[in-house]
């Protein structure tokens, strides 16, 4: 069985510096993968390279097809990318923003939406609990509500692969948990979800797999317990962690400086 997403010796140079160096990996479908690492480790750059948004050396494959062999539209249909910051430049309604997720599938006018498009948009809004904002301008929503609308936008495209950059940044704890749970459920439905995050505690609990980056290199990859070791945390983040086991789940809380 081929992996959902394969990276073959991916390197990305930005401003003459190798920000991502020689990353090779294969990720399976139906997995929730957290991409961790300190600021400047190259997480966002790697995510963009996966999405084909940056010129990178090496080969990215969706299934067994190289990204370069797919048209922009095909790529957009199979892969959803949610950038950091949740920018919205015009006060569009929630429904219109979510309907943008159907753009790669040829939806021209959200007002005339029907069939598969309407189903996908409604399902995405339902799953993210944003249906009640449908007619409201996104710019009037709170940060947490807006984050979920943006998530609904990518879900509406029903991509096989979901690449998400810091979905929980600047959200309150309730929304941090909700958004991470939303992502996990999407993985349970069969998508490969890769999320860049700084939330070690939530990632260790909810992610199936953790990839740890440091200075452009992928230093560790595997189950949370195997990756978030004291040694790795000290080396990569320079921190110590508090570990507790509650109901059989190991909780890793960043604690002090190493």
């Amino acid at each position, binding site marked *: 069985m081929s992996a959902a997403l394969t990276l073959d010796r991916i390197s990305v140079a930005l401003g003459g510096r190798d920000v991502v160096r020689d990353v090779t990996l294969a990720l399976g479908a139906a997995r929730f993968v957290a991409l961790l690492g300190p600021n400047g480790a190259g997480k966002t750059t790697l995510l963009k390279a996966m999405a084909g*948004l940056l010129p990178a050396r090496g080969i990215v494959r969706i299934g067994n097809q190289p990204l370069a062999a797919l048209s*922009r539209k095909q790529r957009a249909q199979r892969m959803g990318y949610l950038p950091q910051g949740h920018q919205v430049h015009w*006060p*569009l309604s929630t429904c219109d923003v979510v309907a*943008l997720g159907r753009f790669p599938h040829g939806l021209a006018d959200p007002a005339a939406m029907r069939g598969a498009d309407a189903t996908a948009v409604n399902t995405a809004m339902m799953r993210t609990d944003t249906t009640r904002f449908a007619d409201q301008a996104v710019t009037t929503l709170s940060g947490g509500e807006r984050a979920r609308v943006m998530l609904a936008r990518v879900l509406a495209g029903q991509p096989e692969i979901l690449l998400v950059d810091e979905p929980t940044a600047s959200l309150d704890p309730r929304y941090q948990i909700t958004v991470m749970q939303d992502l996990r459920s999407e993985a349970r439905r069969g998508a490969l979800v890769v999320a860049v995050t700084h939330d070690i505690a939530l990632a260790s609990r909810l992610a199936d797999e953790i990839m740890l980056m440091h200075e452009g290199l992928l230093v560790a990859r595997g189950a949370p317990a195997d990756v978030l070791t004291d040694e790795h945390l000290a080396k990569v983040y320079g921190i110590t962690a508090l570990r507790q086991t509650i109901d059989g789940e190991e909780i890793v809380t960043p604690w002090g400086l190493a």
Partner: protein
Amino acid sequence: MRNLPRSWLLPALALLAATLFTACLAVGPVRLTFTEVWSGLAGIGLDAHGIIVREIRLPRAVLALMIGAILGLSGAAMQGLLRNPLAAPSLFGAPQTAAFAAVSTIALGWNDTLSWGLPVASIGGAFLSVFLLIAVAGRSASLLLLILSGLAVSALAGAGTALAMNLAPNPFAALEIAFWLLGSLEDRSMRHVVMALPFIAVAAVLLFLQRGAFRALTLGEEAAQSLGVNVDLLRLVVILGVALGVGASVAVAGTISFIGLVAPHLVRPLVGHDPARLMIPAALTGACLLMAADIAVRLIPATSDIKVGVLTSLIGVPFFLYLIMHQRRSLAGGVA
């Protein structure tokens, strides 16, 4: 509820445009009634009316309609591309640069006001200005950066035009240039319509086809790209479309400013701020504005004719100031 304004907006605007178009044919030194206009158009009734309507007023009305529409559409397209409500061809020096290019070829004796070289020169000028602006201001430019760069481009075009007048071979050439700059639809013939129409039609199609991409750009360039939009190509197509539309308009009517800024603004709240749904209403509104302005200059009692370009600037600039007042916060912040 979202769809309510949309359903009546287009018919209402179309009706308004049709009314203004008819008024454009009726108003002038010889006032005609509605029936006289239509019989004049159809070639029945008085010969004099037929000549006034078909040869004098029809070209003027058609030009007002198509130039207003393309200016409104260009404004909507630039605002969509730059995701900025203050973007408009005239603020970025496009008409001024187009006029500069056109007048220099006149001053140099390469073109007269009816040759095909004129739209080509002004389209080239407009393309250069928009290209320069986007190159200087960068991809995700802030309001401040765009406006400053636009100011610089306009100033440069102004200086170039001044130089062309300065170097003009005779006072008549200088006078011709001066009148050109005021922007007018007076005494135009079907020849002018034929000269501008192909470029304007191509521009309208080019810009209108990008509407979906403008909507996707609402989420920022990276998100748009991940949705399958080729942002670099889009930028080039919009520059080309705006240059074709503005350049061709300037070639036949001189500089007519601020329609592109005002028109999208008037309809934006009515279409829910969606840059895609904005395109056609903005074009219709632009056409209505220019036709109304061209009727107004004929009605305003003045010893000498007021040029329509003067009127649109007189209305447009205060409107621009009003917009700045409302955007003060984002301007002060330096980022949009």
